[in-house]
């Protein structure tokens, strides 16, 4: 596959390297008697220290596989991983398992979607929290236990000392997710990857967990990579948003311009297909036609073309290159607004008050 559009890895990194720097990440699952399934396709992603970055996509877009690849948690057999994942200047891909274990859980921690399947049902919460502390910080048992109780209190679990002796099934869903966050934060990681951290929870509990994550990010300076399918969560949490489709990032932008002025038809489609609590009622929703499984291979076309309302001849003929303009990038032949935008038109980025009308082309 030619096309060296994003340039060689170190081409446009002016100045300091971000905390996490993913370049050209490719993850392919090998299949018997069939061509490989490319789940992540030459993905570039930066997470600067202390920032919150959102990775948005539907099922099958490759967002979870991306996080697993960053953490080195993909199985070794049947998976081809290529590209580069640099964390604090150190290449993680291809690191020996022992070295990776020293980073994982200490500098990079992860919170998963379903807290019930991530906690060991036969070990008490206390054992699971202290395990990380004893492994990475070599704390003696008593100290680790005190610190674990402190951590549980920190994430809002009432009566933490007693909870240490309880088992996952004795906690509610929200409490389990808090325990998981406490484990993730035990060693004060520099990067926290949260993969759909609230999908299994009720909205009132979701609000509690998101508030907790926001607070932790601002208090400790931990960078957060938030993976979700819910644009509403992103709107309230993330500084930068990447929208993924079929293994590639199709649009990246800071939060405000992305919501006020989405350039990719898929981003706009996602925004127009969810009913909004604050929108006037009675308006028909504008769905994205088809389903996330209707994709073309990126090699010869735009993967979104079968579902795109703006598909034209170039869309099915060749894959769109990634265009960059300041902090925004876009991968589309037929963007909703001129890209890169003309300087006078959108430069001041006025407060997004007319989001409903702003993307009149698709709504």
């Amino acid at each position, binding site marked *: 596959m030619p096309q060296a559009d994003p340039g060689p890895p170190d081409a446009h990194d002016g100045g300091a390297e971000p905390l996490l720097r993913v370049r050209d990440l490719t993850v392919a699952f090998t299949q018997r008697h069939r061509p490989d399934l490319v789940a992540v396709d030459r993905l570039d992603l930066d997470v600067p220290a202390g920032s919150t970055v959102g990775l948005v996509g539907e099922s099958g877009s490759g967002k979870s596989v991306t996080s697993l690849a960053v953490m080195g948690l993909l199985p070794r057999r049947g998976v081809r991983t290529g590209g580069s994942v640099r964390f604090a200047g150190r290449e993680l891909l291809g690191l020996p398992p022992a070295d990776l274990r020293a980073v994982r859980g200490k500098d990079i921690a992860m919170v998963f979607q379903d807290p019930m399947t991530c906690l060991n049902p036969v070990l008490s919460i206390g054992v699971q929290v202290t395990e990380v502390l004893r492994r990475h910080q070599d704390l003696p048992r008593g100290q680790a236990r005190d610190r674990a109780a402190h951590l549980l209190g920190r994430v809002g679990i009432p009566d933490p000392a007693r909870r240490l002796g309880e088992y996952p099934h004795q906690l509610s869903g929200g409490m389990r997710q808090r325990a998981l966050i406490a484990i993730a934060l035990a060693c004060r990681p520099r990067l926290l990857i949260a993969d759909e951290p609230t999908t299994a929870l009720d909205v009132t509990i979701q609000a509690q967990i998101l508030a907790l994550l926001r607070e932790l990010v601002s208090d400790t300076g931990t960078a957060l990579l938030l993976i979700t399918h819910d644009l509403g969560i992103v709107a309230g949490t993330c500084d930068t948003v990447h929208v993924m489709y079929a293994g590639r990032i199709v649009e990246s932008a800071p939060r405000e311009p992305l919501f006020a002025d989405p350039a990719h038809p898929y981003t706009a489609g*996602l925004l127009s297909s969810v009913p909004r609590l604050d929108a006037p009622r009675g308006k028909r929703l504008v769905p994205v036609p088809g389903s996330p499984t209707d994709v073309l291979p990126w090699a010869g076309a735009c993967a979104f073309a079968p*579902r795109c309302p703006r598909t034209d001849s170039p869309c099915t003929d060749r894959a769109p290159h990634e265009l960059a303009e300041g902090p925004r990038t876009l991968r589309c032949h037929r963007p909703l607004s001129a890209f890169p935008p003309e300087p006078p038109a959108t430069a001041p980025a006025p407060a997004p008050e007319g989001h409903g009308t702003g993307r009149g082309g698709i709504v």
Partner: protein
Amino acid sequence: MSRLLQVRDLRVHFPIVRGILRDRVVGHVRAVDGVDLDLDRGTTYGLVGESGCGKSTLGRAVLRLVEPTGGTVEFNGQDLATVDRHELRRTRRRMQMVFQDPMASLDPRQSVRSALVEPLRTHDIPAGPGGWDRRVRELLDVVGLPAGAARRYPHEFSGGQRQRIGIARAIALQPDLVIADEPVSSLDVSVQAQVINLLQDLQSALGLTYLVIAHDLAVVRHVSDLIGVMYLGTLVEQAPADHLYQAPLHPYTLSLMSAIPIPDPAVEATRERILLTGDLPSPADPPPGCRFHTRCPLRRDTRCHDEVPALREILPGHHVACHWARAPQRNAPDGPGDALPVAGAPSQV
């Protein structure tokens, strides 16, 4: 508009049994505990609440898929609690259900044609000219699937298409009432809107009446005429959809709405969140007095703890079960001294 469904004081209590040799009932989970609900023909009633609040049980109890402990369900003027099995089966033809997970509610080894014909056969509907195939084609066409889908099996479809099959099966008998339990929550975001639009199209084309059960208040508000908010087995607020958003009067509704993320950074940055503390109490041992008082930010001693608030009509069509709820002052200037911040809801959200 004629009344299609009238539910009065519906209660569903599940016994908690302990014991090794002989089962001993040690308590009851009060999944649904005294709910009144009226549904007019051709309208949509949306039932929202968090998991465990009893909303799904309520839906199933209306169809008598679970046996109610008490109360009455009148469908078309007929009390379902008293009808015998044969009569119940005949009545069920007029009320159908769409389930949350279409993969689980469709038989993986049954073709789509067979799944759609089964309800027709069960209820002895004559095949008519053109036979079943014609009816199957019509049904598939109505829900937007190609005629070729009839020969295929559930695993060959995407999530959205499967839900369309589930909907086609529900409307095969031309029911009056369709109960949709979380019809879109298992679907991808971009596909949810397709199914929501389909449900709305079918309603206007076939004159269906919906009881939509969902946890997502934004979805429920979009499709419903009337919304009921459930908490621990009881309705805490019921209002027309627009009214509920503009002027929620129950503190639980208020916090529920403030917890729903809105995909707009400008709104997210300015809106005030009312974070509830703690989790849903156990429905086996609901708190005394107002069931919400353990988490309520506006709790007052000692009435909330002692007295169960009744569902009162505070504005026309707007019912609230809270001791302190008052109509917004511009509409009813009667209780200015007592008005709580709840009344000024729109400015808070």
